[in-house]
């Protein structure tokens, strides 16, 4: 066993190396947590509206009787084979997003279309039943029930609710097990009770993998037309646009954090190396070249920095798991506990700290005089 082996120093000087590692762990944990939690905002928005990636909505604007014409255009011109083209009605309600209440749509289908769409949404099982024709009843997905704390028999829409209005109390009669968010009701009830009396169209691509292609075609085809296309592509684009400024602020915050942590670590490493002056002087006097000593310290620093980073990443994942379990999942908020962007944001930490360590090392060894130390002239 080489007494000057890299791990020996780190292990036997744990009281010195662990605090250094600890600072890196905390920095990584902090950055990873901040970025993951910030990312969870747009992620939640995208997750809430993810169901639109499985179907596209097309609705007339200011011309209620234009729906049949739109339907014909889609049937005749869409280059992507159509899976289902369903006429629906809709009303709005709200869900609880991370940044407050967010608009959501209750879509009312005819029974065969409802069954098709539930399958399309990846429903694996249904607790309760489907809404009966003409009845004020709704089926919601499991994330929605968690988010709005709704059980079977609870009221989804009602006459006394401003943000979730329906002339009658619309009860939850079914909860579908799937990761997608949706609230579906019966079209006949909506036709009889909801305003405006406009049918809109939901279209699915026969092959779900080609849904985005269909969306792009519709966006192009109906551009400038009195028609609105509601697609996941648009929602995603709007969400990204909406949070652009937030991400700029985040970049500045993380940048400041990295600079502060690097300066702090640079100073800590300087003290750490300063405490080892006698060791370096002795080894150099005995016959270890500057290069050999520098390589040894670089190896130790790399281990501390990489170890700290890895440990920081593991701690972040563990902490985000706890946050997800206690805060996010019960409210159906989306959180990616292994968010790659968040991990990418932490990479400057080890790089900057390692660079600061190299700079410190270079300034220390540049004019290092071992004789001065072993003679006790320089301490």
């Amino acid at each position, binding site marked *: 066993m080489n007494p*000057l082996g890299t791990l*020996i120093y780190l292990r036997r000087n744990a009281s010195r190396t662990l605090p250094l590692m600890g600072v890196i762990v905390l920095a990584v944990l902090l950055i990873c947590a901040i970025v993951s939690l910030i990312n969870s905002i747009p992620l939640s928005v995208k997750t809430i509206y993810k169901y639109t990636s499985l179907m596209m909505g097309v609705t007339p604007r200011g011309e209620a009787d234009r729906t049949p014409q739109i339907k014909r255009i889609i049937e005749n011109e869409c280059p992507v084979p159509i899976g289902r083209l369903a006429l629906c009605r809709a009303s709005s309600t709200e869900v609880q997003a991370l940044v407050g209440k967010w608009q959501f749509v209750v879509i009312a289908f005819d029974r065969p279309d409802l069954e098709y769409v539930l399958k399309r949404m990846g429903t694996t099982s249904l607790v309760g039943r489907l809404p009966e024709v003409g009845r004020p009843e709704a089926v919601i997905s499991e994330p929605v029930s968690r988010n709005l704390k709704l059980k079977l028999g609870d009221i989804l829409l009602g006459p006394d609710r401003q943000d979730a209005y329906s002339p009658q109390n619309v009860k939850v009669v079914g909860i579908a097990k799937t990761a997608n968010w949706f609230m579906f009701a019966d079209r006949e009830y909506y036709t009889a009770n909801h305003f405006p009396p406009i049918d809109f169209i939901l279209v699915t691509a026969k092959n779900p993998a080609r849904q985005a292609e269909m969306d792009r075609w519709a966006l192009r085809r109906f551009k400038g037309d009195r028609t609105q296309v509601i697609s996941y592509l648009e929602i995603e684009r709007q969400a990204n646009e909406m949070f652009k400024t937030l991400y700029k602020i985040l970049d500045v915050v993380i940048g400041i954090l990295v600079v502060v942590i690097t300066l702090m670590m640079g100073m800590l490493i300087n003290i750490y190396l300063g405490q080892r002056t006698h060791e370096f002087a002795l080894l150099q*006097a*005995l016959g270890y*070249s500057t290069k*050999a000593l520098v390589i040894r310290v670089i190896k130790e620093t790399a281990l501390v920095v990489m170890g700290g980073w890895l440990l920081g990443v593991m701690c972040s994942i563990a902490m985000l798991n706890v946050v997800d379990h206690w805060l996010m999942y019960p409210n159906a908020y989306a959180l990616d506990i292994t968010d790659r962007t968040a991990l990418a944001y932490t990479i400057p930490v080890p790089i900057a700290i390692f660079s600061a360590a190299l700079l410190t090392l270079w300034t220390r060894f540049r004019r290092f005089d*071992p004789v001065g130390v072993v003679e006790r002239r320089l301490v």
Partner: protein
Amino acid sequence: MDKVSAIRPGRRCGTEVGVISAVGASLVYRDHEREVFACSSVDIEVVPGEFLGILGPSGSGKSSLLYLLSGLKMPTSGSITFEGQDLHQLNDAQRAETRLTSFGFVFQYPYLLGYLNALENVMVARPESDFREQAKALLVSLGLESKLGRLPHELSGGERQRVCVARALLGKPKVIFADEPTANLDHANGIQVVQLLNQHRGDGSLVMVTHDPSMLAEADRIVRLEDGHLAP
């Protein structure tokens, strides 16, 4: 004082005679605008196997001479050769390699690495596993058999210096440099350390700097330094 002698003027420095030779070696420090001659045109050679004592009062330049001879300092003028090779011609890594493999060092203060035990501290001089048994044997022969696994703070001052002696002896170096190795020890411990160095050095030369003539009782030759010059 019949042992006290400087190198005879004009004596040639050659590999057949001196293992280390200094020719006109000077070491000048700059103290603000003033030049201070730590060593001034020193000619000296260390003969293989000899115990050379360098005696002088504090500030006479004896430590500087030792650091010049061992390649830890480069002369401002003149040359230092080890086995015919000018140390000045070697790069930092080559000089370091020479110190590690051919020289042993004992300093005034018993410098040990605090996180290594006695045996590991000795092995710092030659970390290759082949030297482990030799390091153990050295510590045993220096009376430290029960202290092999002790950390430096668990050893007395004398024991620490003996560990330093073992470290200097490991690998049977050709020259051992000792810079006032007894300065921080009581007289009895000091004498013991010098005796141990002298007994265990084998064929290697021992160059020891001290201000205490009684420590050089076993020296083969003693030179005096005064104000950076070898005294006649």
